[in-house]
């Protein structure tokens, strides 16, 4: 059955571009075969597309000479060189945090090195064993003068 209502221009454009669902496509196809007015409108849409394609075909251009070389040259130009890599490292955004990180690392490195050296120089067991034992058994037995504070403690 052919619909009495004409095909909307929007639907006709979708039809020309093959964008209608199969059922709608079939309905429009059937309508066009029986409706002169819509058939003319359809012809107009088809012709507009053909004109555009014909125009595009006639005005098609070759790729301009030198364009491909220009693309390759632009890429070479923007490629990172060793100097650019070095220069990147000198940027303040990179340099300042890097310098700060190095300074912090050096600081903690030195502190930890000193701490380790101190700990190595005096063995912890010395306090727990030798020194404590010596202190309680033979205080000041090495002939040294007893601290005044201790002697006054004795007199108290």
């Amino acid at each position, binding site marked *: 059955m052919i619909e009495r209502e004409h095909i909307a221009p*929007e639907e006709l*454009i979708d039809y020309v571009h093959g964008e209608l669902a199969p059922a709608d496509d079939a309905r429009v196809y059937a309508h066009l075969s029986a409706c002169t007015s819509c058939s003319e409108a359809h012809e107009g849409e088809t012709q*507009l597309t053909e004109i555009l*394609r014909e125009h595009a075909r006639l005005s098609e251009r070759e790729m301009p000479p030198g364009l491909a070389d220009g693309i390759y040259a632009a890429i070479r130009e923007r490629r990172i060189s060793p100097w650019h890599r070095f220069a990147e490292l000198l940027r303040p955004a990179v340099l300042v945090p890097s310098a700060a990180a190095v300074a912090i690392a050096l600081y903690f490195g030195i502190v930890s090195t000193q701490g380790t050296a101190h700990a190595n120089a005096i063995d912890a067991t010395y306090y727990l064993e030798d020194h404590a034992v010596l202190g309680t058994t033979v205080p000041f037995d090495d002939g040294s003068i007893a601290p005044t504070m201790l002697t006054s403690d004795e007199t108290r």
Partner: protein
Amino acid sequence: MAAPRKPFEPSTPEQTAFLERAVEQYGKATYNFAFRLTRNDADARDLTQEAFIRVYRAWRSFKPGTSFLSWVYRIVTNLHRDELRRRKGRYLEEIPDDNEPQAFGGDRPLAIQPIEEYVEGQLSEPVSKALDALSPEQRRIVVLADIEECSYQEIAEIVGCSIGTVRSRLHRARGQLRKLVNRYMKSSS
């Protein structure tokens, strides 16, 4: 074209080969597409060059088995849109409101007259002028739908909008185009 000039890593042989093959096979089509959008040679060259630089940089993101042209057209379209925004003072990009009623050309029957009558010179000027007179957004859609023969789905992916938007923009653009072609044909006859 004022594009950001970021340096990038040295290429691998595969990357260079990919670029060379892309330029060789699709350079002409890309340049023609860029020309149809920009309507002038200098901008089309710049757009093509910048597009292939993007292709080179992002070559790993290309999925084998998908359409290279769709990919490069999307790049060209985005670059062109960015460029138009940069030149805002010179070109005002008209983005139609898709909710507005569709304006179809009043002089609808472009039809009936056979195309053979408009061959070469006769056809070329009015259509060329009409395409020039379209807004960049309308021209983009018409070029993709009618010249490049892309589906609405492909156009939506290239342009970055919904299929409904493609549809309404195409309807409007064709109405406008028809009106303009008729006007320029009358003025030239």
